[in-house]
């Protein structure tokens, strides 16, 4: 579904990604892990067109999306939820999801049309239900709990009906209970939508619990990939990331 082929990116003299190749199978859920500064968010920024790729290619299916504009990549089928929640703080949950749906439905065509609110309303309420936001549907986004704001960020990405959903630390800033609640929700979402998911996460218990494939990044290079079982046993990963002597 998503294929990253030997991408390189440097900032000044520093290599942020070094020949990174990642291939995600359709309908799979995958984790990208690595210590701080390993280049995880850079990879998300390269995939979404936020920053340009120096070398290499990125494909969604047969579409080469390398260095396309951010907006074009979104329309081809990549959506992203951010590490620092990115929402419309003064709009309600309902209005926010409707804006995302409007962006998806026609792009910038038919701008002066009175949009048919019936179908958009119906779709928005479905997305709220899917993300567990029905109870706070009419609440102003800035008044939501941190967890619900994260869910709204994901709901906005889901409204774009992406082929690939990128989640940048979906549990960042949450307490243990809230984290597991969020993970449960993401798992359900993935099972229901069957889209391809790639997420960045620091909590290894969470990663091992839900990821089918794990990609381990260190200093801009992929040092290992495999199932949770394989990664747990991988000596290079254990040495570099999971903490030396533990076996």
């Amino acid at each position, binding site marked *: 579904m998503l294929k990253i082929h030997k991408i390189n990116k440097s900032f000044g003299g520093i290599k942020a990604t070094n020949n990174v190749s990642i291939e995600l199978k359709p309908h799979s859920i995958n984790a990208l892990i690595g210590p701080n500064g390993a280049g995880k968010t850079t990879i998300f920024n390269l995939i*979404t067109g936020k920053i340009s790729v120096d070398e290499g290619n990125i494909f969604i299916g047969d579409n080469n999306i390398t260095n396309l*504009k*951010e*907006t074009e990549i*979104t*329309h081809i089928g990549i*959506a*992203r939820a*951010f590490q620092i929640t*990115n*929402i*419309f*703080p*003064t*709009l309600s949950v309902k209005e926010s999801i*409707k*804006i*995302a749906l*409007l*962006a*998806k439905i*026609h*792009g*910038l065509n*038919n*701008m*002066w*049309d*009175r*949009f048919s609110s019936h179908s958009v309303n119906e779709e928005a309420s479905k997305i709220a239900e899917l993300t567990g936001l029905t109870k706070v549907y009419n609440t102003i986004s800035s008044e939501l709990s941190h967890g619900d704001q994260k869910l709204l960020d994901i709901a*906005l990405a889901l*409204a*774009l009906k992406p082929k690939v959903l990128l989640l940048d630390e979906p549990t960042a800033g949450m307490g243990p209970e809230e984290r597991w609640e969020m993970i449960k929700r993401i798992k359900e979402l993935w099972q229901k939508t069957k889209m391809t998911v790639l997420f960045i996460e620091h909590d290894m218990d969470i990663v091992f619990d839900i990821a089918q494939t794990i990609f381990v990044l260190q200093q801009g290079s992929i040092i290992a990939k495999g199932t949770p079982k394989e990664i747990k046993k991988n000596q290079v990963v254990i040495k570099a990331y999971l903490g030396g002597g533990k076996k």
Partner: protein
Amino acid sequence: MEIFALFDCIITPACLISQTAGGLKIGMLLFLVASGLTLVFGVLGVINFAHGALYMLGAYFSWQVMSITSHFGLAVISGAIGVGIFGLLFERLLINKVYNADLLVQILLCYSVILILDDLVMIIWGDEFLSGIGVPEIFQVPPIFIFDAIIPPFHIAIILISMIVAFLLWIIMTKTKFGKLVRATAINPKMLEALGVNTNVIKAGVFMLGSFLAGLGGALAASLGSVVSGMGNSIIIESFIVTVIGGMGSISGAFLASIIIGMARSFGAVAMPLFTDGIMFLIMVLVLVIKPEGLMGKKK
């Protein structure tokens, strides 16, 4: 101060109706210009000091079309559309370069454009007052008398046209997809971009719409008075007052504030004819003290 004159006016139906109609005319024309200014500020975060110059261009464009075609409607529409297109070019070539710049840079850019446009219109149309585009033939009829108040039918037409524009603007901003995306752009443009919307198109559209409104105001003003270089300088001050009173970025606030200022000018001319400008500033100061975010502005 002739406070008794004001009292007499209020209890005399002819004076009350006549001054109210006059206030509405001033207010509605002011709304056309101020709504564009507040729209641009609310979405783009730019205080477009050159907005008054766009109003002036609207007057000149309509005067030019009127002198060629002698068609009032065509002259007004051409003035508004011409300034809308000019605004689009202005935004694409200049204003978008200073969206995130320091306020001082934005002011300097706008002030340069004002000076250039003031000189350009003098080079093209001369430095003398032009006589305006006049009242269309259909309205060259005897005035309407309501309780002995004399109201020119054309003034009623101007009020109605401005109210229709205000209504259309409300429809656009609240009921269309464009309006919803404009609101979202004002709140979080980065998020909208992440959702796949090219916000540059929205921003250019907003600036074009704001310029169109300034041009329409200028074209209609050209029917009521003369056209001269620098005519936008006084309207921009009044528009700022309206924007501050109504709440920066609030179109409904601009509507309310325009009516308040229009009435203050109209009735102020009866009570304090030498202090009508002062009344406007006084109202602004009062609003800033009591409700700093403006009558319909949102607290930040």
